[in-house]
């Protein structure tokens, strides 16, 4: 591998049902920053079936180039044809950096692609920057410049590690959704569109999709909510989430939950906050009956204001709460809802 041959920042523009995922635009935004530091272009790699029309949106959010891999085999996400698409694009166009969203798709696709092309992959990054490796000069060792420094939480969010991939290209990272900012949309901005199809021949690794079952959900994405009313196992039952929903209705807030609630089957996975769920940073986060396992804290501790209600005064959630209330949620939450109704009506 000649590292000098690898140029440019590529991002995987994830789409589902031919709608770009939020992470696609976030990665274009971040990729643009990194590309600027390196003096190169940012290229979005759009993979799917009949997806070419999405290239304009990627351009308006900052992509300089869009590589479109369009094939009927790519209609629904499947590991093998998508891995083949990305590995082929990497071998053909040789980017120095390749970013993928740390979604349920990207966390499957990233490892398969990085293993196929033999490079490193850093998971669930929350910060990316261009810098030197080693970060501080070490006598007798060459300090490499223009390296991608990838920072990620580990150990359930208790430690922070910065990783480099100095000897292999591309430098690959999956990036946690909701952390990077998308760039402002520039209407009418154009990108160079390149159509590329490496050919798709089904083999033993192509799985068959028997059924696609979509979760019925009319709720706001919890990552977009300004106020979250989040419940944990302490809420006690799926029926008792009613008191959280009532509180959320008064505040025009959205209900979310901890992993324990999803594991118990009380709420769907898309409402889960935490390391294996979503990372949220609302203006106000109510943690109600949530003990605060560090995996949960990792997904919500960047919230502006954290209000915790829990009967166990030793619950770890109080270690990150701005305002902690030790008490019975079954009494406090309904009373709070009533009082808020009055307070808002009298405003």
């Amino acid at each position, binding site marked *: 591998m000649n590292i000098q041959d690898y140029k440019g920042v590529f991002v995987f523009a994830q789409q589902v049902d031919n709608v770009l995922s939020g992470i696609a635009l976030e990665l274009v935004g971040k990729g643009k920053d990194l590309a600027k530091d390196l003096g190169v272009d940012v290229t979005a790699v759009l993979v799917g079936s009949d997806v070419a029309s999405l290239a304009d949106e990627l351009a308006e959010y900052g992509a300089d180039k869009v590589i479109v891999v369009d094939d009927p085999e790519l209609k*629904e*996400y499947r*590991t*093998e044809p998508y*891995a083949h698409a990305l590995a082929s694009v990497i071998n053909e166009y040789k980017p120095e950096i390749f970013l993928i969203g740390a*979604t349920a798709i990207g*966390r*499957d696709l*990233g*490892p*398969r692609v*990085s293993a196929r092309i*033999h490079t*490193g*992959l*850093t*998971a*669930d990054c929350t910060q990316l920057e261009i810098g030197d490796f080693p*970060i501080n000069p070490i006598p007798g060792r060459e300090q490499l410049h223009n390296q991608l420094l990838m920072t990620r*939480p*580990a*150990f359930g969010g*208790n430690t*922070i*590690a*910065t*990783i480099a*991939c100095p000897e*292999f290209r591309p430098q690959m990272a999956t990036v946690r959704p909701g952390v990077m900012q998308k760039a402002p949309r520039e209407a009418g901005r154009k990108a160079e569109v390149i159509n590329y199809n490496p050919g798709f021949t089904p083999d033993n690794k192509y*799985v*068959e*999709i*028997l*059924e696609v079952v*979509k*979760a019925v959900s009319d709720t706001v994405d919890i990552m977009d909510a300004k106020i979250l009313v989040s419940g944990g196992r302490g809420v006690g039952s799926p029926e008792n989430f009613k008191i959280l929903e009532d509180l959320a209705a008064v*505040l025009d807030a959205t209900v979310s939950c901890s992993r324990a609630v999803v594991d118990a089957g009380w709420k769907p996975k*898309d409402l889960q906050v935490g*390391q*294996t769920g979503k990372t949220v940073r609302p203006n*106000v986060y109510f943690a109600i009956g949530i003990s605060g*396992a*560090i*995996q949960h804290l990792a997904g919500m501790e960047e919230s502006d*204001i954290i209000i915790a209600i829990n009967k166990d*005064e030793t619950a770890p959630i*109080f*270690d990150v*709460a*701005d*305002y*902690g*209330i*030790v*008490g019975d949620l079954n*009494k406090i939450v309904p*009373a709070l809802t009533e*009082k808020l109704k009055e*307070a*808002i009506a009298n405003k």
Partner: protein
Amino acid sequence: MKIVVCVKQVPDTKGGVKFNPDGTLDRGAMLAIMNPDDKAGLEAALRLKDQYGAEVTVVTMGLPKAEEVLREALAMGADKGILVTDRVLGGADTWATSQTLAGAIRNLEYDLIITGRQAIDGDTAQVGPQISEHLNIPVISYAQDIKIEGDSVIVQRQYDDRYHVLKVQMPCLITALAELNEPRYMTPGGIFDAYDAEITVWGRADLKDVEDSNLGLKGSPTQIARASDKVRKGAGEKVNLDVTESVDYIIDKLKVKHVI
């Protein structure tokens, strides 16, 4: 049917997290457990064994102490435990770890390989899919249900807003979610037998078709540039009031912060 399950011994971060006085994690004071997603993978394998009949071999890579999770797996009902341990394998990132495990699994017969989706210490979710790539077999990640039909598996694969029902011919690799099932307890007889059971120990020389340049710290493409314990934002106020006072307290804070 032959099933290989990969498990990892990890420090228990759930519930029993211990901190040093300076706020950093006290790893020495934490229990070492079988990684929860891996345990769900093992349970899934044992259920397939109960239902269809299977030989379940459990493989772990780690320090000699990791033998503990193999004995636990045997006590739950696994048939064979293999510990892959060698100084030259230390410091491995996910690339080198997956190369090591693939090198071990090449010695075994298998229809199905099951790994946990991710370990609670690293949280990368990479090793399972990477093993499948090295072995050139299909992968289905994030499995929330597994069934066997003839020479195929039918798996519910979870996504954020949906699941896919997928069918693939074996051999294949599946990564399991902890939500998949409730792992069984070890049986007293199982514990007794597991204590005496022989654990197979493999070192570098036992790995098949793997180059030295892909193993251990030296074979790891990713390198740590910096590591630090995370500085958490400190606790704010904590109050213990009656219901009415609690409500007034919250409303007051919401007003001060201009939320209402």
